[in-house]
C-alpha cells in the first residue's frame, strides 16, 4: 500500500537525503548514493524516487534561491519529514529485530 511500503532504492534515496540534510537536491543525492554504494545511478531514477517520496509525504521540498553556481539555476531542496524519519526508524527496527532473531548457530 502506498505510504507504508518503502522500496529498497527509495530507502537509499531517503537515507541520502537525511545524510545531506540541508543541502539535499537531485545532483547531491545522486553523488551521495554513488559514493556510498560505489555504483552509478541515473539522475532520472533519483528524481523519480524523490517525487514518489514527496507524494507519500515522507519528504517535503522547496525551491532554493538563485545562486552563482549552476549558471544561476535554482535547486529544489528536499527535507525528510517526521513521517519519513519514522519510516526509516521502523525499517531499521525491523531489521534489528530480525537480526536479533537469527540463532547464533546459523552461521556455523
Amino acid at each position, binding site marked *: 500500500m502506498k505510504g507504508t511500503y518503502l522500496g529498497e532504492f527509495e530507502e537509499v534515496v531517503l537515507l541520502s537525503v537525511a545524510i545531506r540534510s540541508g543541502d539535499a537536491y537531485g*545532483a547531491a543525492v545522486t553523488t551521495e548514493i554513488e559514493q556510498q554504494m560505489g555504483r552509478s545511478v541515473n*539522475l*532520472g531514477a533519483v528524481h*523519480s524516487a524523490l517525487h514518489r517520496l514527496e507524494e507519500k509525504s515522507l519528504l517535503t521540498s522547496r*525551491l532554493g534561491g538563485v545562486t552563482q*553556481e*549552476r549558471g544561476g*539555476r535554482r*535547486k529544489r531542496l528536499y527535507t525528510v519529514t517526521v513521517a519519513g524519519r519514522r519510516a526509516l526508524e521502523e525499517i531499521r527496527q525491523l531489521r534489528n529485530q530480525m537480526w536479533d532473531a537469527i540463532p547464533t548457530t546459523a552461521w556455523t
Partner: protein
Amino acid sequence: MKKPLNSAPQPPRWATRLLHGFCPSYLVEEMEGDLDELFRQRIELIGVRKARIRYIRDVLSLVRPSLMKQKPAEFDASPPFFLGTTMIRNYFKIAFRNLLKNKVYSFINIAGLATGMAVAMLIGLWIWDELSFDSYHKNHDRLAYVMGTQTYNGETGTYHSIVVPLENELRTNYPSDFKRLSLLWMSTNILAVGDKKLAQSGTWAQPDFPEMLSLTMLKGSREAFRDPSSVLLSESVATSLFGNEDPINKVIRVDNKTNMKIVGVYEDLPHNTTFHDVRFLLPWHNTANWWNTQTSAWRNHGCSLVVQVSDQSDFDQLSAKIKDIVLPHIKEIEYISLHPMEQWHLYSEFKNGKVAGGRIQFVWLFGIIGAFVLLLACINFMNLSTARSEKRAKEVGIRKAIGSLYGQLIGQFLSESVLVAFIALVFSIALVWGSLSFFNHLADKAITIPWTTPSFWFLTIGFTLFTGFVSGSYPAFYLSSFKPVKVLKGTMRAGRFASLPRKVLVVIQFTVSISLIIGTIIVFRQIQHAKNRPVGYSRDGLITVAMNTPELNAHYNELRNELIESGGAVEMTESNSPPTQIWSNNSGFQWKGKDPTTDPLFGTIAVTHDFGKTVGWKIVAGRDFSRDFPSDSGSFILNESAVKLAGITNPVGKIMRWNGRDHVVTGVVKDMVMDSPFKPTVPTIFLMDYGWLNMIIVRTNPALSTRDALAKIEPVFKKFNPGSPFEYKFSDDEYARKFSDEERVGNLATLFAILAIFISCLGLFGLASFVAEQRTKEIGVRKVLGATVFNVWGLLSRDFVMLVIISCLIAGPLAWYFMNGWLQQYEYRSKISWWIFAVSGAGALLITLLTVSYQAIRAALTNPVKSLRSE
C-alpha cells in the same frame, strides 16, 4: 549564453535540447542544473567523454511518465492569451484615465452620444409602437374591414363605410371564407345608472365582435353578448359608473331610451389599437339601433363591417372574389374589397381603390431622422478622437515598440469607444425615462419603456455595441496605423490631407442639421398658411351640442327662445353636421343645363332658418333663408364652389331637382372652409330641412366670458334634456384639431432639428477648442508680430465658416427636393420661398460663429508670452 573563455567542455547540446523538449517547464530549470553539476563533477572523476555519455544516459533516464506530468502550476507561466483579461483591464484603465484627463472632450463625447442615443431610442420605441399597432388582438392577422370603392366627380374614394345588407350577403354566400362578421356603428352614447350619467364613445356590434377582438374579459363572458339586450363595458367605464361594485346583471339606461343588462366587463383596449376609444359594446340586434332597420337599404352607406376570414383565406384572392357582389343591387358602381387589420394604421390611404401608403411614411421619415441624429453623434466621436490623435500618437508608438500588435491596438481603441458608448447609454436611458411623458404628449402615444422585456435589452445593448464600434472604427484604424519609429522620433506630422475626412464629416453633420431646419420651417409655414386661410364664417364662441336623445329633437323654437332669453346665447341653429365638418355627401342632383354624362357629388348640409345668422356666413347673391317666405322650406343655398361645379350662371331663383322634389336656389354664399383646411372648399348645398338635424349649434354671447355664457346656457339644456349630461364642443377647438397631425410632425421635427444642431455644435466646439490648442504657438507668434484679436479670430473661424457654407449649398437643394414632395400632398399649400433657405443658412452660420468664436477669442486673448514659453 556567454561561452566560457577557456572553452570548458560542454555537455552535448542535442541532449539539452531534448530535455527542453519533453521536460515540463516547471522542472526544466532544476533538472538542467542537476545535470550540469553532475557533468562538471564527472569530468574530473571519469573524464569528458564518459561524463558526456553519463549526461546522455541521465537525460534519457529523465524521460519517464512520472517526471513528464504537468504539475498544477504554482505560478502562471503560460503565454498571455490574446486579449486576455489583464490586457482588457489595462485598456479600460487607460480609457478611464483618458476620459478623466480630458474632461471637456469626454463631456462633449458622452453628452453628444447620449443625446443621439436617446433620440434614436425614443424613435425606436415610437416605431415599435406604430408597427405593433393592433397586435393586441389575437386574430389581428385575420381581421379586415370591408371597403367600398366609388368614383364621383372623377375622384375615386375608398371607405370602410358600407351598406348594411352586405353583411347578410357575405354571411350567406361565402360561409367558408368568413369565419365571423360584425357590423359596427360607432357612436357616442349616454350611459346612465341611477344618477350617474356618462357620455362615452362606443359601438353597436354584432355578437361575434368580442370574440373577433379577443377581448380579455375581467367579469362575465363574451358569449353572454349574444343576448340582444346585453351590453359589455370596458373596465374604465364600469369603474366610473359602479366604482367597486359588481356591475354584472345590473341595468343600464342608454341615451335615456333603452334599458340594457350588463353581462360583462372587458379590459380596456390599449392605446395602440384602432378600437381603443370603444369603451362599451351595444347589441346590434336591438330596436334602439337605427341601422338594424336598414337591412335592405343597398344605397345607404354609414356603418362598417369587420370580418374575420377563415384561416386558409388570402385577403387578395378574397377581395377579387367579392369585388362585384353589390353591383346587381344598385345602379351606381361600387366595388368591394378587404382591408386587412395589419394595414389599417400604417397603410390607410387609398388611391384608385388600391392601398397607397399612409402613416408608414412617418415611420420611414422618423426612422431616417433617428438614424441621422445618431450618425451625427458618432461623427462627433470620430472627429474628436482623430483630432486628438497626435496627443495619443506617443502612446501608440510606445505600445507598438513594446510589442502591441495592430489588432491589439484596434481592440484597445474599440474597447475605449465601447466604454464611452455604454456610459452614454446609461445617460441616454435616464434621458429617455425623463422625457418620455413629454414625448408621449407630443406624439400622442402611451409608450412605456419595456424594462422587463429581454428583447428590449438585447436590442439596446446590441445597438450600443454597434454605436461603439461604428464611432470607434475610424479612430481605431487610423490611430493604430501609425508608424512607431516616426511617432517616437517626433517627426510625426499629420499631412495636409489628414484633416480632410474630418472636414467631410463636419459637412455631413451640418448638411443634415440645416436640412432639418429648412424642413421644420416649411412644415410650420404650411400649417400657418392653412391656419390663415379665410374660413368664410366666424368660429369664435361657437359651440355644438349633439342631439342624442329624443327630447332634444322636438321643441326647436322653445329651445332657441329660451337660450336667447337666458342671455348666454345670441343665436342658435340646428344642422345635420357640425360647422367644422361635412358629414353628408350626395349626388343625383338635376338642373337645367347640366351635362347629362356626369353626376357630381355635393356636400349636403341640412340647416334651419337661423344657420346663416349663427355661423355668420356672407351672402354674395340672392338672400338668406327667411321666415318671411314660407316657401323657403326645402330651398337651397349654394356656396361659390358648388355654383362653379354645377356651371350655373345666375343661380338665384333657379330650380334644382333632387330626390324627386324641386328645390329653389334662394342664394349663394361665400365659400366656407368646413372640411379639411388643406383642400379646396367642398362644393356644398345648404338645404332647409327641419327633419334631418343632428347637431345644435349655439353662438355664445360675445359680451360675456365663455364660462359665464356656458353657465347661463347649461340650465336651459338641463331643462329640455334632463336625461343627459350637458356635453358640448367648441368649434374653434374642433377646427384646430384638423391641424393636429401636421402640428405633431412639425413639433417632432423641431425637436429633432434642435437636437441635431445641438449635437453638431457640441462637435464643432470640441474641434474648435482642439484647433485653438494646437495652434497656440502660431497664434503667439502672430500676436508678437502684431496680429490683432480680430485677425486671430478670423483665422480660426474661417475654416469652419467655409465648411458650413458648403453644407448650406448641399442642404438647400436637398431640402427643397424633399419638402417640395411633401407639400405636393396638400392641395392648398404654401410656396417655398428663397428666404427660408437664406434664414436657415444664416442661422446655421450664426450658431457656428458663436460656437467657434468662444474658443477663437479665448485663444486670441491669451498672453503670447505664456503660450510661447509653454515648452
